[in-house]
Each structure stands twice: as structure tokens, then as C-alpha cells.
């Protein structure tokens, strides 16, 4: 693995290892895959693809989950 890439994660720039997978990122963030939904460049990713989808420079990632609401 060489170097890092910069992605936008929930609106903020973040450096991650080049070729990191979505699973790898969630792991790094301490998030349980079953508890979050991942949108990459405005497309919702299927949970089954987390382990295979690798992040690239400039990817925009949104991580959302359920919170309290009416």
C-alpha cells in the first residue's frame, strides 16, 4: 500500500489509506456496518459490497444512521 488519498467524509476532508475498502474505513472509525448506511458519490452502497468497494481520491462519502426523531 502506498500513500493516502483524500476523500470527503460527511462533508469534511479526510485522508485515508489508498485503496482502503469501505469495511476498512468503518472499522477505522469504530462503526458497526449493520448500523450505518453508506452513500458514495450519491449512490447507496449495498452492505455486501463494503468489503470490496475501494475508495478513490475525491470520493464523497456520506455515513448516515438512525437517530431520535418524530
Amino acid at each position: 500500500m502506498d500513500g493516502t488519498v483524500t476523500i470527503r467524509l460527511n462533508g469534511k476532508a479526510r485522508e485515508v489509506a489508498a485503496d482502503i475498502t469501505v469495511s476498512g474505513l468503518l472499522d477505522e472509525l469504530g462503526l458497526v456496518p449493520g448500523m450505518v448506511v453508506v452513500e458514495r458519490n450519491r449512490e447507496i452502497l449495498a452492505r455486501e459490497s463494503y468489503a470490496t468497494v475501494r475508495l478513490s481520491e475525491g470520493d464523497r462519502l456520506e455515513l448516515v444512521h438512525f437517530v431520535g426523531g418524530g
Partner: protein
Amino acid sequence: MSKQASADTPFVVGSREFASRLIVGTGKYPDNETMVRAIRASGTDMVTVAVRRVDLDRTREEGILHHLDPREFFLLANTAGCYTADDAIRYARLARAAGFNEWLKLEVIGDETTLLPDTRATLDAARVLVAEGFKVMAYTNEDLITALRLEDAGCVAVMPLASPIGSGLGLLNPYYVRAIKERCDVPIVVDAGVGTASDACLTMEQGVDGVLMNTAIAAARDPVRMAAAMREAVVAGRLAYLAGRMPVREVAVPSSPPLPE
């Protein structure tokens, strides 16, 4: 309460039966433990949740599923905070991707001050989401025509407000809510504006199928106790509706037989 006294048609929405006619929101509680206790005390089996960005700056995990068991309560995701049909559709898809169900409380807000619904955007979003297989419970104002259009669009329930979200003003327009109930075939759930138990009771006395509330419980001094009050109020209002109230008269009518001459 005897079984016979409580005999009623079941509360069915989109072919799913719910034990309680009360739907409860999960926002604004003083803490998560109080929220869970209040929701249990309310007797509800359906709770609303919102979809938001994970707060990555927090070390504490604040996702609601760490506190609420989705096997204990049916989760109804909302699109609260959305101001356009496109946003509502996007959040609906995100909610469904969480993998629990395809149900949705569709809410498209039209104005920041009153939080009143944008009914046209709501209708636009409803049509798209119904076509995508969502079971849409649509939050709207107490306008009959919009309610009929939402029903036509394929919503599984229409949810007119009692009064603005979080206002606690109670049921401002019982006449219009009754008109909606009389004309729509889908379940009518009054959503937003209930402030206290008598509001919930009065709302159910109009003959609507259910009530959805959040702030009335969450912002009470004792949310757990208010949740229990709401449970009773919804049952009482429903029973009173089924029982059929006595006519109102502007003259006194004695309850006891007259004395002999």
C-alpha cells in the same frame, strides 16, 4: 377493562396490524434511558426514527439502535427536516437501505417558522416513493383535498396534523380532521400538535385511526408518566368514539325521575 368493552376493529396499516393506536417519536428525550422507558410505558409498537449523518467527532455512539431494539418496536423512518421532494426521496432511500423495512413517514416541510408541510412536494415525493415500493404514511395538513390526493397516490395512511409540529396546541380543527376521516378509506393518523392527554383523547374521539406524537411525551416533566397517560387517553378516546357520545343540549335534562305529584 373487560375484553368486551374494548372490542374494536384492529388497527391495520398497509396490511400490517398494530396492537396500539399510538405511534411515538424518539426525539428530544432528556436521555436514552428515559426514552426507552417512556416508549414502553406508552404501549406503542411503532416508533419513528430520523436519518442523519453519523457524527464522527463524537466518541460516544449516539445511533438510536444502540438503545432501541428493532425487534421490540416496528421502526418507521421519517424524512423530517427535508424541504424538497428530492431530499425526501433521498432520505427515504437511505432509510430503506438500513435494512429494516420499506415503510416511511413522509414529511416535506414548506416553511421554517411554522414547519407546515409543503403539500405539493409531499404529493410529488409520495408518487415516486409508492412506485418504488415504499409504504408511505404521509404527514400533511388538515386539508381534505390533499388527503384525498395522497390516498390516490397510493399512500398507506394519511397523517393530518392536529396543530404545528412541537407546538402542543392540540387539535385545532376537529371538523376538518373528521371530514378527512369520513372521506378517506386509508387509515387516518393524526400526527403533530398533541400537547397533553386530553388532546390525544379528543383527537381519538373524532374517529381517526391513530395518533402520532413525540414532543408531548418527550418534553413533559415526567415523560414516562406522560407516556402512560397518553396510552390511556388514546384508548379512552377510541372507546368514547365507538360508544357514541350523547347529544349536546343547551338546556338541562334531569337524570333522576321526577318526584310524585
